[in-house]
């Protein structure tokens, strides 16, 4: 399968992830959507690395995976903290930034 196929796959995954981020009410649900988006990015990177015979793309992917994992951990930690304080994980209720 050509590069285009993999890129299309990644694009579709990204769109699904975006949909999840936008529509989900639960904070953890939003984080899951972000996971999907990041996954799509990784697929993109690896596909380009393979088709351009450049290993740097894969190095990039290694880094993004690691950093994403750290970010998810922290995001969930914050969610737990907010839950403790506000007794809710519904994102609609977290509107302190409202101007």
């Amino acid at each position, binding site marked *: 399968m050509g590069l285009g196929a993999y890129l299309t796959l990644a694009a579709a995954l990204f769109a699904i992830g975006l949909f999840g981020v936008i529509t989900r009410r639960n904070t953890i649900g939003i984080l899951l959507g972000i996971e999907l988006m990041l996954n799509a990015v990784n697929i993109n990177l690896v596909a380009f690395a393979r088709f351009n015979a450049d290993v740097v793309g894969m190095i990039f992917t290694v880094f993004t995976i690691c950093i994403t994992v750290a970010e998810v951990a922290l995001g969930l930690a914050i969610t737990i903290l907010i839950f403790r304080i506000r007794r809710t994980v519904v994102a609609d209720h977290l*509107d302190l930034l409202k*101007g």
Partner: protein
Amino acid sequence: MTDPAFLALTALLLPAVSFLVLAIVGPLRRHGHAAAYLSIVLSAAALVAAVAAWRVSAAGGFSERLWSWIPAEAGPLAVLGVLADGDSTLMLILVALVSFLVQVYSLGYLSDETLPSLGRYYTYQSLFAFSMMGLVLAPNFVQLFICWELVGLCSYLLIGYWYTRPEAARAAVKAFWITRAGDTGMLVGIVLLWYQTGTFDFLQLLQLADAGLIPLEGLGVITFCIYLGAAGKSAQFPFHVWLPDAMEGPTPVSALIHAATMVTAGVYLLTRMVWLFRLTPDVMEIVAWNGAFTALLAAVLACVQTDIKRVLAYSTVSQLGYMMAAIGAGFASAGFLHLLTHGIFKALLFLGAGAVIHASATNDIFQMGGLGRRMPQTTIVFVVGALSLAGIPFFGGFFSKEEILGATLAGGFPGVFAILLFAAFLTAFYMFRVIFIAFGGAPAPSHGGGESHVHDAPPFMAVPLWILALLAVGVGIFLPFVRWQAEFEAPHGITYAAITVAVLGIALAYLVYQRRVISADTLAAVLGPIRVAAQRRFWLDDLFAGIYRGIMLRFAWAVGWVDRYLVDGVLNVLSAWTLMAGDRLRRIQTGQPQDYVYGVALGVIALLVWMRWPR
């Protein structure tokens, strides 16, 4: 050091230094007498410089010093400097001399003033001296106009010196407003002239005129506009109404500004520009006829005044009319000569009147009387001035007045000549009316209490009076013998006509007011309607007041309305809309992070679309 421009520049800058020092150094000014001494000393030095400048430049020719002030591509846009030739240095001497004498006189006249006010007075005097000299020495229209306006400002400041008196404040505003109206016309004329010729500079314009390069069409409008400015400053009809009211200011101010210098600025300007005005004979005719009319009108008005200063004010207006008539007839040198002699004897008359007012504490001539016996010195100098004004031989005004009469005939204006001759009769009449009422006869009965105060003037006031009187007589005696080049051949009968008319006027005044042979009331009854009209100043003041209230104030109100509701309104509406928009836009910030994700996503889409848009 023999460069007349340098000397003239020195004369110009000395009062400027005085003004700056007095304006900036508050304590010095508030000390009062120190300010006066500084101003007087620098003014004397300026006089010396002016005389030196005249001596050096009297040989003819000219010299100038210029500094470019506003640079522009095609040569500087505005240039400042001095242009010293025979006329300007002569005028400079007049300004410096009268200014110096008036400042010395003021030490005595204003001795009752508080010290800070005195300092303020001398600051204004210095500024005025500087402005007037700047006007006289101006090499181009730009500096002329600037100094013209400065002189008007000083006039306002000095007329309104006693600003706590409402009449004085009103008079100052009136003077400023009316001269300003004329000045607007002058500005239009100056700009039009620049538009036609491309230059403000006098010398360049003179060269253009001589070479016949100034386009003639539209030049009449230009010269008429410039004449408007001159008419405003020199109190020609209908702009003359400010001068009598300006008598609210201190008498030395009247002597300086409203006799010798500021009001003569208009005449001086026309004398300077005569080569330009010669190109438009129609405007010259207007100048001549208006001058004659003004002379007659003012002379009539002077006959019914009871305030001694107002008599002198109308007399000034009348004499200015004489000067203008001579210029209009085409012989500016006659007008200029009368300007110089009139400056001397009118200043003398004003200062003398000041001494009289200071002593009798009133301006009303019917409240004075018999001053001749109690103030002999003042009486002598005042009579000298009056004789000069009336045009009696061997006194200052005789020769110049005769020159003017001859000029009008030689210029082909017999009507003007007749009017001026009649006005000369009236001049002698009203002047000696004042003398016989105030100085002759018995003291006014109601003024018995002020007896002790009526004495001759103190030295500060007396010395300038004597100096001016001697000058008036000296000029009268020596002028015919100094070779004054008349530009025309005058018929010999004029001299006798002038003398006869003057003597007749004096005789009539004598008969009416001294001898009481002819009753003043009969005279008044004969001239009934004219007298009433004259006492109402021919309703001209009312006309101006009506215009001011009716048109000007309404117009100002309308402009104010536009400013408040339209100009400010537009701004207020815009700001209100901005606030409203801001309020509405607030709602984008919902606080929900997902909505912000929306924004990001939309932005990315937009970016992609824009990148792929078919070009």
